[in-house]
């Protein structure tokens, strides 16, 4: 079975903190994605990566950055967390067939 693992299920951070969300996949997929899920808005793409050290902005990249130093790991970084970044964050990986999703990280910024 494909496994996409997000390091935390729940996270509470303070406004202004630098936050790292980690995602690891075990299927040697080239492509990895970070989505944000909010009620009534569905999932929106923040960033994606198609190779190590390569990244592309998605639809809502403002306030976020990403890092992909190894093929299996894709990190989402909130440079200075704000309350409007409170959300569910979903990581996905795939290789031109379909996307496999992690369990999600519910981030609360207080």
């Amino acid at each position, binding site marked *: 079975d494909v496994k996409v693992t997000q390091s935390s299920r729940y996270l509470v951070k303070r406004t202004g903190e630098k936050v790292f969300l980690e995602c690891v996949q075990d299927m040697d997929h080239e492509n990895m994605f970070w989505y944000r899920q909010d009620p009534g808005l569905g999932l929106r793409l923040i960033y994606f990566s198609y190779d190590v050290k390569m990244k592309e902005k998605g639809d809502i990249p403002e306030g976020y950055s990403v890092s992909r130093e190894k093929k299996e790991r894709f990190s989402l970084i909130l440079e200075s967390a704000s309350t409007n970044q409170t959300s569910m964050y*979903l990581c996905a*990986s795939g290789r*031109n067939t379909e996307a496999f999703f992690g369990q999600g990280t519910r981030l609360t910024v207080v």
Partner: protein
Amino acid sequence: AQSVTQPDIHITVSEGASLELRCNYSYGATPYLFWYVQSPGQGLQLLLKYFSGDTLVQGIKGFEAEFKRSQSSFNLRKPSVHWSDAAEYFCAVGGSYSYFGNEKLTFGTGTRLTIIP
């Protein structure tokens, strides 16, 4: 730009009844279409996908969907729902012209399904 509309925010169905969840898409080329399901507190699981060929697609858990190009629709159906089908359902479209088309997806806002005994 591609987009997906799921017009029903919330649907309630009796156990054993049939189900149809609506999805309309906007895309300038041949779309890749997906239905995902999300149980409470879980990630998304792929139910089925359409890339080309037969417009009636069978998926897991007894679900099927029909691609209708003339109506820009990809509605999800199940003949008889079970209590375990209660979840949120997302329709998504990917780009056939893009290398990332199958995973770089645009999602609808979701339909929450409630099952009553």
